[in-house]
Structures are given as structure tokens and as C-alpha cells.
């Protein structure tokens, strides 16, 4: 690609991303009251979104092939268990990440 083509391609990425970010705010501007259904969605969506994001992070895990998703499962159980116990956000995240790194670097070596 030439430089103008590269810049246009990046502009397309930026434009599409901006549309997905700004559209809800443009449609439901603060001047008009937001429809009840959209307010309802705003309240209930987070629960579903966070489930979706966790699955999204794990989308490339292969439960039927080596390493059978075991490093991910163990690290997530540790993260969640520690979090339920201590409720220290940073501690849970750090412990889960270090556990995962040790597992894939030393235990489940490909």
C-alpha cells in the first residue's frame, strides 16, 4: 500500500470505531428523554457484558486439545476464590496472572 492508502485504511478503522462509540450517545441525546427500554438495557446489560467479555478472553482456549484449558481454569478459580475470600481487586488479579504465567511457562509447556 502507498502512504495515502495506508492513511485511508486507518481512517476507515477509526471512523467505524467512532461510529460504534458515539452512536448510542447521538441517538439518545440528553435533550430528549431516553426511552424506558434503553434505560432498562443500561441497567441489565452490564451483567451480560461481563460474562461475554470473560468468554471473549477465553475464546481461543482448546478444551479438547492440549492443554485442555487447564491453565486458564486453574488461574480463574484461583482469581475468583481469592477474590471471594479477600475482596482485594489488585491482589486477585495479580495472583491469577502470576499463577497463569507460571503454569504455562513451567507446567503446561507446549
Amino acid at each position, binding site marked *: 500500500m502507498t502512504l495515502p492508502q495506508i492513511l485511508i*485504511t486507518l481512517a476507515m*478503522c477509526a471512523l467505524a470505531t467512532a461510529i460504534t462509540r458515539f452512536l448510542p450517545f447521538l441517538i439518545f441525546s440528553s435533550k430528549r428523554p431516553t426511552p424506558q427500554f434503553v434505560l*432498562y*438495557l443500561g441497567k441489565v446489560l*452490564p*451483567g451480560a457484558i461481563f460474562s*461475554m467479555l470473560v468468554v*471473549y*478472553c477465553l475464546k481461543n482456549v482448546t478444551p479438547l486439545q492440549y492443554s485442555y484449558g487447564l491453565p486458564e481454569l486453574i488461574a480463574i478459580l484461583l482469581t475468583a476464590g481469592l477474590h471471594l475470600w479477600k475482596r482485594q481487586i489488585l491482589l486477585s488479579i495479580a495472583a491469577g496472572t502470576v499463577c*497463569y504465567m507460571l503454569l504455562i511457562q513451567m507446567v503446561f509447556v507446549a
Partner: protein
Amino acid sequence: MKQKNPIWSAFLAAFPCTIPVLTGYAFLGMALGIYMSVAGFSVWLTLLMGLAIYAGSLEFLAVSILVAPYAPLQTFIVSLMLQARHLFYGITLLEKYKDSGWKKPYLIHAITDETFSINCTAEVPEHVDRVWFYFFTSLLDHSYWVIASIIGGVLGNLIPFNSEGLDFVMTAMFVVIMLEQWLKDDDHSSAWIGLIASVGCLMIFGPDNFLIPTMICILAALTVLRKIKTKVVGDIK
């Protein structure tokens, strides 16, 4: 007595919330910078991408789009599909970002999976200005990403330790946030809907195409759920 600057106290409240993102973005941003420079692109393009697009998954994809033949319309459509989840974030943040004045365009531009998660769930302390808090989480996260990608582009492969698996910090963060949301909600039907829809769609459509079907299923299920609930409430009345 020491006067407390409201902007400064918002910064102090926001910074600790962004530390997991700092770790994750430092790693992923550097990886992107290295990837871009290995593919032969100038660090200025990495900077431009980080400022204007600012979306991890799409920027990684953009590298492979840039080395492929020129196809702007296809790029536009693929980007729209990949980024469609921002629509959900926007709907959720409508009320929170209302009345944020001049900061609003930037707050919206800086929406990412991670910043959305922080601003959606963080319990901003009473004495802290909410809008400034949102502004600083957004600005800090954005800076981490841009700075890390530039460092990656300039220094290349100089990470002094085996960082394999460090990207799990994002997964761990979403697990913790999901758990926090779960503990906060009395009704877990939405979390179950999200889980079942995404696992189901992942199995049917595969890892590269499951987000849009998942979002459609979630919307449909939540719509039905609301109908059922209002009907039950109506019946009780």
C-alpha cells in the same frame, strides 16, 4: 488546613483503579508496537493508531489489513463488526456520561472494554467529582496504551523477562469485575444470559465470528425477560 483540589482528588481516586489496566496495556501495547515495527511500519503510524483508533483488537487486526491489498470498504465493515460491542457500552454509560460537558466527546472516544469496565462498576467516593474521575480513568488508560505501543515500536524486543502469559491480566481483571457485578446484582438472569449466549455462539460460530450473534441473542433474551417481568408485576397489581 490544606485545601483539596477537586481535580487532584479525582486523579488520586482514579489512578488505583487503573493499575490492572496499566499492566495489561503495557504488555499488549508493547506487543502491538513490536508487531507494527516488525511489519515495517513507522512508529508515527503506531502513535496515530493509538490516538485515533485506540482499540487493541482492531489495531492488531489493522496490522494484517495494512500488509494485505488495499480494501477500504471491507476494512470499514470488518471494523464495524469487531467494534459493535461498543454500542452496548454506550447504552450502559448513557446515564453516567450525561452532563459531562466538554469532557463528553473525549470520554466517549476513550471507551474501551477496560475503561468501560472500570467506569461502569467503580464506586466513586462521595467527595470526588464523578466526571473528573471518569475523565482520568479514560485519560490514564489511553496514555498507558499509547506510550506502551511507542516504547514497543522504538525498543522492540527488549523485554528483559519471560512475559509469556502476561496478557492473562486482562482475563483476570474481567473475571474479578464479573464477580463484583455478580455480588452487586440481586438478579443474576442477565449474567446467565450473557454466559449462555456467548458460550453457545462461540461453539456454533467459532472464535472469530461469535460476538455479533452473541449480542443479538443477549438483546433478544433481555427483551423477552423484560416482557415476562412486567407481565408478572402487572399480574400482581
